[in-house]
């Protein structure tokens, strides 16, 4: 029978097929762990007298609430310090490999694993974090789970799951200059809505997707969850193999050939059908920015803030109205006229080396606008930071007036001191513009690194074309 990529990966991990509507038992190739969603899972094992089934299929790092300055000093936040020291203690007790703060391989869970070459095509990868979908960029089936499932995976290396539905998002054609992966995914979410992918695994397909680098593919798969999907995937190809080759955990020699032969089978059969299909013309895409309080409330950067009065659907109208109130925006305002306080470049969505290069390419030779309070550049991983420093990007950022920080989740979710104050407005390369996400009362506009950098130069939301 013809299968989709997601169905093939599922079938290759089937331990036990559920009967009479019971869930299947699926084998998990790799679980990534961090300080926030692991403590109760370890505690659960300890209380039940259990041990992890395969410590060699687990790996941990510190990211969610790590500070991005003074990493060599004691953490002043007691709750965060407790979570971090608990992770360290648990990893030691249970024998799980940990890359802690200060280690060159530390970073956001969804950045450090691809850096190490641990994320490979056809794997099942889970983590107690919804943006685990990032790893789907390699043709892995990767998704976020809850803390009790983290415990379940440690104990059994499996999960009980019902098969996901499949959805294809085709992006065909050539991307216009200045349009990035972030714009593609923001446009997709604006089109299908924040519930558009519910219960589905999205496979991103088409010539525009094929043309993207691995860093860009990760940006797209990362935000699948913002469209409500369980996971996002892109079939592996030469770009994928090229990225993996030579990384610490990538297979070598004969194993490499064997792996590539298998990876090449991981694509949707020509005659397979999806439960749902959407097509987008790449040539029509422009830089996108969100104006509201969910990632689906986005528009082309040259558009105006929508007017609730123009919206027929009562529920939509109400949602738009309350989003505009929270965001402090008047209907009809040109998005490009909105003044910004802070620019945040980073996160598991857009904090990789290519994102840093993109931002630096725009900032070079400029200085941030006086009205911009701060420009925070936070690499997604310590490796990306070191690489950027090798290339001299840190100097570009510092000359620009930006703050160059240590790797972590940082202002994406404000679990560390990097927060917006009430009423403060940011353009952020992260993934969620929910109320209070970046700090209580903070107002977030999601955008690409190019738009974020141009905004920092002009002080109002801008793209490089406006410079």
């Amino acid at each position, binding site marked *: 029978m013809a299968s989709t990529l997601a169905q093939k990966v599922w079938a290759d991990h*089937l*331990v*036990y097929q559920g009967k009479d509507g019971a869930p299947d*038992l699926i*084998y998990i*190739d*790799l679980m990534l762990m961090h300080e926030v969603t692991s*403590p*109760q899972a370890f*505690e*659960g094992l300890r*209380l*039940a007298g259990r041990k992890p089934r395969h410590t*060699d299929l*687990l790996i941990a790092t510190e990211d969610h609430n790590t500070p991005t*300055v*003074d*990493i*060599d*000093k004691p953490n002043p936040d007691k709750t965060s310090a*407790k979570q971090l020291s608990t992770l360290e203690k648990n990893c030691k007790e249970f*024998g799980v*490999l940990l890359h802690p703060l*200060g*280690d*060159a*391989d*530390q970073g956001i869970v969804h950045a450090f694993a691809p*850096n*190490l070459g*641990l994320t*490979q095509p056809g*794997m099942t990868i889970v983590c107690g974090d919804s943006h685990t979908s990032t790893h789907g960029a390699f043709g892995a089936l990767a998704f976020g789970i809850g*803390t*009790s499932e983290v415990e*379940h995976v440690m*104990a*059994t*290396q499996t999960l*009980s799951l019902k098969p996901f539905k499949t959805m294809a998002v085709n992006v065909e054609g050539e991307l216009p200059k200045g349009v990035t992966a972030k714009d593609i995914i923001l446009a997709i979410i604006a089109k299908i809505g924040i519930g558009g992918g519910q219960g589905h695994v999205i496979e991103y397909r088409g010539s525009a997707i094929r043309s993207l680098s691995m860093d860009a593919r990760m940006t797209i798969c990362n935000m699948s969850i913002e469209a409500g999907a369980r996971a996002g995937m892109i079939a592996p190809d030469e770009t994928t193999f090229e990225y993996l080759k030579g*990384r610490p*955990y990538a*297979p070598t020699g004969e*194993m*490499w050939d064997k792996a590539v032969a*298998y990876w090449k089978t991981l694509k949707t059969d020509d005659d397979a059908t999806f439960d749902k299909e959407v097509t987008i013309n790449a040539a029509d895409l422009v830089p996108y920015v969100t104006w509201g309080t969910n990632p689906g409330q986005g528009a082309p950067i040259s558009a105006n803030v929508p007017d609730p009065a123009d919206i027929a659907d009562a529920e939509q109208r109400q949602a738009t109205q309350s989003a505009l109130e929270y965001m*402090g925006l008047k209907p009809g305002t040109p998005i490009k006229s909105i*003044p*910004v306080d802070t620019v945040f470049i980073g996160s598991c969505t857009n904090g990789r080396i290519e994102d840093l290069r993109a931002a630096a390419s725009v900032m070079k030779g400029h200085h941030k606008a006086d009205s911009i*309070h*701060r420009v925070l550049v936070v690499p997604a991983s310590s*490796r990306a*930071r*070191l690489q950027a420093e090798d290339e001299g990007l840190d100097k570009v950022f510092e000359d620009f007036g930006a703050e160059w*920080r*240590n790797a972590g989740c940082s202002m994406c979710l404000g679990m560390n001191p990097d927060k917006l*104050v009430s*009423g*403060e*407005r940011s353009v952020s390369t992260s993934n969620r513009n929910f109320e209070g996400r970046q700090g209580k009362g903070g107002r977030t506009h999601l955008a690409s690194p190019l738009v974020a950098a141009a905004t920092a130069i002009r002080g109002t939301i801008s793209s490089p074309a406006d410079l």
Partner: protein
Amino acid sequence: MEKLTQVTGVGVPLRRSNVDTDQIIPAVFLKRVTKTGFEDALFYAWRRDPDFILNKPEYQNKGKILVAGPDFGIGSSREHAVWALRDYGFRVIISPRFADIFYGNTAKNGVLAAIMPQESVELLWKLLEEEPGRDMTVDLKERTVTCGDVTLPFEVNDYTRWRLMNGYDDIDLTLQHEDAIADYEKMRAQRFPFKPKTLPAKHAPEEPVRSARPVDDSAWAGPIDA
């Protein structure tokens, strides 16, 4: 997990309906790193009230069976709600109707959610209030509740009953397929020998990571449009 067949202990009449999980345990307690020790958080707001039933000497830290009104456990999905009840000492919650997610979470944690008609709950409330602090018995095998001379039936599905009587948590249930897991692992090693293992650790070259410099924030005058 501890098996549950028969529970005898103090019955607590909680004359409230729509008890939501925010009342059972407020969100502030979700920051903890433990899975036990939530007894202090149970009904945190209500327990500030000296007249709340769990503050009465007959019930304080003694309750084992909670008899509540309909729609118990509605709201947020937090499993902490069951942990708090369990840690306080409750092994059985009786209600005419439970919220779905809460109901699922009870069996996972060895707590019985017994469904009884409203009339039975009213009768139990009356019996318990006539003699505060009295014991009652829940027999899972017989599916009955006994309080003094009165014995009443309760509802529980066969699967949940089997799970609780055997003390199975989700992991135990999966491990019933342990042979299938072991078979899969054998096949996996043969068919996918190239799949990565995190141990022994493979490092790229070690490099020192220096701390970023803190930035002086004192000139910040607040948001532009605030």
